[in-house]
């Protein structure tokens, strides 16, 4: 589709210089804390994502990564600390308001609207046509074009009239990704995008993520367990263990960090 091609053509081709395109901080937290009864799932985390980056969030199971995501998006209310997005304090914003301001997310369990067709899944998520009154019209040409563009991009266009619930797990993941992109987000939070993906498809996924970051100008924060994957795609990585941020740095630095190794191998 034409729009994707145009965007691709205009951007510099250097993936290696992605770091130099990084701007100011776009999404950050200060002292974010969340407790569940006696358990502190997220413990005073200061995290920062700058425009244009791809940031990884890793840590052993139960480290609090998904909870952190949920506090950021407004799904959960933090017990302490603040969340900032584009300079606004969005800690108390309701989830849907934050989502409409340019922050989108995908889920670990891959959530799509199973009863609706693939195409409708994307159309209903589109950024254009938003607004309660505006929704009373048929989807606009712009929305439909964008939906087609993205569905072709992830390779699901052929299945556009199939009920999303029928898709395989991998196909649903791609659909969810397309739905995330069609909202035209400034930041996309991805919860284990590589989870359950066939190893042979991982490279394609990395390409998709890089492409979203570079040509569609989406800043990305992703949680991952697959180490190779995350080291390959991220510019910077945070490590969480027991709810605390224990390390932060480039993939190379993290791989050699003693504290990180301790956390993963259980040496305390």
């Amino acid at each position: 589709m034409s729009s994707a091609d145009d965007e691709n053509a205009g951007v510099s081709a250097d993936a290696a210089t992605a770091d130099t395109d990084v701007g100011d901080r776009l999404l950050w937290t200060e002292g974010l804390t969340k407790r569940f009864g006696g358990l502190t799932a997220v413990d005073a985390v200061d995290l920062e994502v700058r425009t244009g980056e791809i940031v990884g969030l890793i840590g052993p199971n139960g480290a609090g990564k998904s909870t952190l995501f949920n506090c950021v998006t407004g799904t959960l209310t933090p017990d302490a600390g603040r969340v900032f997005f584009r300079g606004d304090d969005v800690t108390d914003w309701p989830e849907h308001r934050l989502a409409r301001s340019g922050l989108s997310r995908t889920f670990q369990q891959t959530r799509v609207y199973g009863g609706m067709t693939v195409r409708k899944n994307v159309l209903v998520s589109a950024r254009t046509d938003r607004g309660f009154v505006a929704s009373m019209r048929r989807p606009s040409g712009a929305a439909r074009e964008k939906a087609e563009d993205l569905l072709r991009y992830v390779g699901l266009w052929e299945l556009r009239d199939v009920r999303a619930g029928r898709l395989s797990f991998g196909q649903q993941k791609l659909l969810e990704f397309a739905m995330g992109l069609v909202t035209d987000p400034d930041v996309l939070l991805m919860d284990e995008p590589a989870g359950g993906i066939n190893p042979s498809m991982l490279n394609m996924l990395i390409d998709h993520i890089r492409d979203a970051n570079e040509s569609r100008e989406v800043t990305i924060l992703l949680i991952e367990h697959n180490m190779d994957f995350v080291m390959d795609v991220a510019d910077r990585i945070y490590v969480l263990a027991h709810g605390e941020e224990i390390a932060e740095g480039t993939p190379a630095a993290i791989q050699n960090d003693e504290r990180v190794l301790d956390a993963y191998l259980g040496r305390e």
Partner: protein
Amino acid sequence: MTRYAAGVLEFADAHGWKIIAVLAVVGALPPLFGLEGGFYMTVATLTLMFGVLALSWDLIGGQTGYPSFGQMGFFGLGAYTTAILVKDQAVAFPVAFLVAGVLATLAAGVVGLIVLRLRGGYFAIATLGILLVAQQVSRNLEVTGGSSGKILLDVPPATTFYYVLLGLLVAEVAVVYYLTGTRFGYVLNAIRDDEGKATSMGVNTTYYKTAAWMLAALFTGLAGGSWSLFNTFVDPNTAYNLSWNVEMIAMALLGGTGTVAGPVLGAFGLHLTIVFIQSVSLDVTLPLLGPTTINFAGWQLVLLGLVVIVTVVSYPQGFVGELRERASAMEYYRHAGGAAGQETSHDETASPDGGERT
């Protein structure tokens, strides 16, 4: 069967508006050709009414995923409104009719603030509770005539109600059909499929749920408003008819929830079947009891209950739903191995919005 299903659905999706127009015209004919009153007029009018009710229920239940067990509450509110206004306040029927609709919609707005926060089973029971409270209140108030209800004498002729309900049904089908093709309709379905996901995608689900709920109440209230005069009598048991409450759900289920044609077809099918069964009596000779006439008059509710059970257990998708399922399955397998990027067969004749509106 499956190709037939896909074919029928494609035709319906492509020519929806024309089909609605044709059916509206066809529906308008019977009174012009002799249907004036009596038994058949009642059957026809009530069939249309159930169409309205089933479709209203489906709007909030099948499309939005909030299955109300108290929809008759709005029906009763509408019924009493017109009864009281026409009988006690000498208001003309058309005005009373509109007031009934407005009141039902407003009541839904208020009630919705409370109940739409609940989900699934809790929502269903809460709406049932509201229906029962409404029934009890009507039983206890003077203005509604208490348990004896109200008798209405000076009412418009039966044909009027036939056309009112026909008009209501056509209007509702048109509105719902239109909405299912808009983003509003898509959002309702998204709420049904995964409300949390919808919220995380930026949807303020409260607005949409409330709108669907109020729209459903509007049509239900208007139906009730016509019915009380048509029936010339209204009392707490008939206005808040608990078995109609279940019947409309069964109708939507049978026909196929989440579709436009489904609830209407289900309503027509089930109601006419029940009427038929009620009119049947068999003369048989039973052992021990000797010659007996088995009259099914009292048994329609048993039948209804059984229909509900069997439908839920074996055919939860309903008729139109089953058609859609098969068509969708076909669609998937046609593009099978249609893993990302692969092109198998093209079907450029599919409608631009992806059909799926019937």
